[in-house]
């Protein structure tokens, strides 16, 4: 059994580090409905961690707990070795947790470049006054941030649409722009809410490649939600499986695939 602080090598030669985030006994209720029931799991540095489950399993709720959009009634979130107090989403973002949304939340009126630049906001330190005067430090900072943004735009192969207003882009590209914006924050943990939802096979393959490349190139820790089993199994190092708000499986893709409870949840089981 691995310890919290241990590292290990994967079969393809990547290093998975110690635990960076741990969810302890999280319970989330909406009125009388329990969306998440006493779930615990951890995320290790540098890994691709998937949360899967059928529709309504509570996956998105879990992601929203991690990113601070929901505050669980019970349980603790541990981040970088200390317990995280209840936080607003923007404070979570400033701690280095970036996310995308299932239904895409981009700034539709802004260009792709502007959208990606908003991802850099947490890295801009110069005060209001200096910014307004647009001199010296502020200028240098803007240039440095611009370079990071351009690098990510190149990386995700969206140079051609840099100056296009996002509202004009097709769905698949919007998803990619959202990934670029999240990535621009150079996050400690990148949360992807159904990155492949609504895509055709080709787009799914592209997105899978980008996710793997991001993890490989920048060493970014990625936690993603998906209900397409096949895609997830190829991508991730470890998988949490949820069903009706409960955790029914946790482990490597192979372990999860052979878990009877998981098979039942996905294929249905005869009750007699």
């Amino acid at each position, binding site marked *: 059994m691995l310890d919290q602080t241990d590292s290990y090598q994967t079969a393809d030669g990547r290093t998975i580090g110690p635990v960076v985030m741990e969810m302890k006994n999280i319970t989330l209720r909406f009125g009388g409905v329990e969306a998440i029931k006493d779930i615990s799991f951890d995320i290790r540095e540098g890994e691709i961690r998937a949360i899967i489950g059928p529709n309504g399993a509570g996956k998105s709720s879990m992601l929203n707990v991690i*990113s601070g959009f929901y505050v669980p009634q019970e349980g603790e979130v541990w981040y970088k070795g200390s317990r995280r107090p209840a936080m607003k989403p*923007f*404070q979570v973002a*400033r701690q280095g947790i970036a996310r995308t949304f299932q239904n895409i*939340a*981009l*700034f539709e009126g802004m260009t792709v470049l502007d959208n990606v630049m*908003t991802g850099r906001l947490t890295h801009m330190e110069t005060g209001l006054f200096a910014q307004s005067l647009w001199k010296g430090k502020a200028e240098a900072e803007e240039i440095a941030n611009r370079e990071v943004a351009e690098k990510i735009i190149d990386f995700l192969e969206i140079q051609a649409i840099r100056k296009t207003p996002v509202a004009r882009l097709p769905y698949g590209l919007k998803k990619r722009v959202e990934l670029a914006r999240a990535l621009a924050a150079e996050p400690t943990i990148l949360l992807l809410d159904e990155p492949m939802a609504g895509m055709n096979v080709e787009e799914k393959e592209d997105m899978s490649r980008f996710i793997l490349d991001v993890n490989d190139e920048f060493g970014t820790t990625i936690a993603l939600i998906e209900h397409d089993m096949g895609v997830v199994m190829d991508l991730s190092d470890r998988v949490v499986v949820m069903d009706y708000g409960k955790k029914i499986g946790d482990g490597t893709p192979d372990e999860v695939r052979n878990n009877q409870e998981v098979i039942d949840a996905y294929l249905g089981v005869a009750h007699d």
Partner: protein
Amino acid sequence: MNEQLAFTIEVFLNGLMAGVLYALVALGFVLIYKASGIFNYAQGVMALFAAMTLVGIQNGQVPFAHLINAIFGTDVHKFGWHVHSFAAILLTVIVMIALAWMVQQFVFKHLVGQEPIILFMATIGLAYFLEGVADLMWGSELKALNVCASEGNCLPQGMNVWLEGTTYEALGYGFFIDNLDIVASIVAAVLVAGLVIFAQYTKQGRAMRAVADDHQAALSVGVSLNFIWVLVWSLAGFVALVAGIMWGAKSGVQFSLSLIALKALPVLMLGGFTSIPGAIIGGLIIGVGEKLFEFLIGAPFLGGATENWFAYMLALVFLVFRPQGLFGEKIIERV
């Protein structure tokens, strides 16, 4: 030059100048509406409040003098000093920022996610509350606002004379435009340029646009909605101050000043509620439209006084054909 034509052009120019003032008020509305979806009915009262605060500080009035005297049986009215205009404007800006913070902290923070009509109602309440506070703080009498009271006349004088002379020599007809109008136009131009640069090129400006576009997405990139809303109300307060100074200098600081908010409505219908350039262009169209209509049609055929209703009629006609305004975001519903 044809006398009638020259006179029409002069009316046109004066209309432009009046339009600048309308645009200034409309600008305050747009800033808040864009960032928070709140139609701020109190914008006019904010202009009044700002102008009264400015005059009060300038004249060394003791704020809440009436209240203090009633409670403590004292008889204080003035500090007996006179504050330099520049310092007074700076102090008023601080007051407006404090006001912005309080509005967000005590009212709108608790109304996040409510229906637009609820937010609108809250601003009506705010408007009358603020009017009461302004009254209580500075007294209700008509005050003259002279930004340059203590320093002599510091508006650059003679611009109108120069303009009249130059145009007379060049065109054979001297155009007369009020000095104050010229200054107001320059101030408005600088203000708008400043706002656009701020929104386009600074961190806070980028965050502001982000909030205006999508709250959820803004949160996810680490933008504090609360901070941005205080910022936006502060900016609207600053714009209100500028509008208050211009209108106050023109017609004195009195409670009817708050009614200029109503004049901004047709401007917004024309320009769209979400567009800064729209507010400017809309203001100019309304200003020019009502002056020209009065001059060419109203006065000769309709018995005059058309300026009272023309703007609203124009806006109504406009609404029928282009509900989102000239520059407003077109609403496209996906089916």
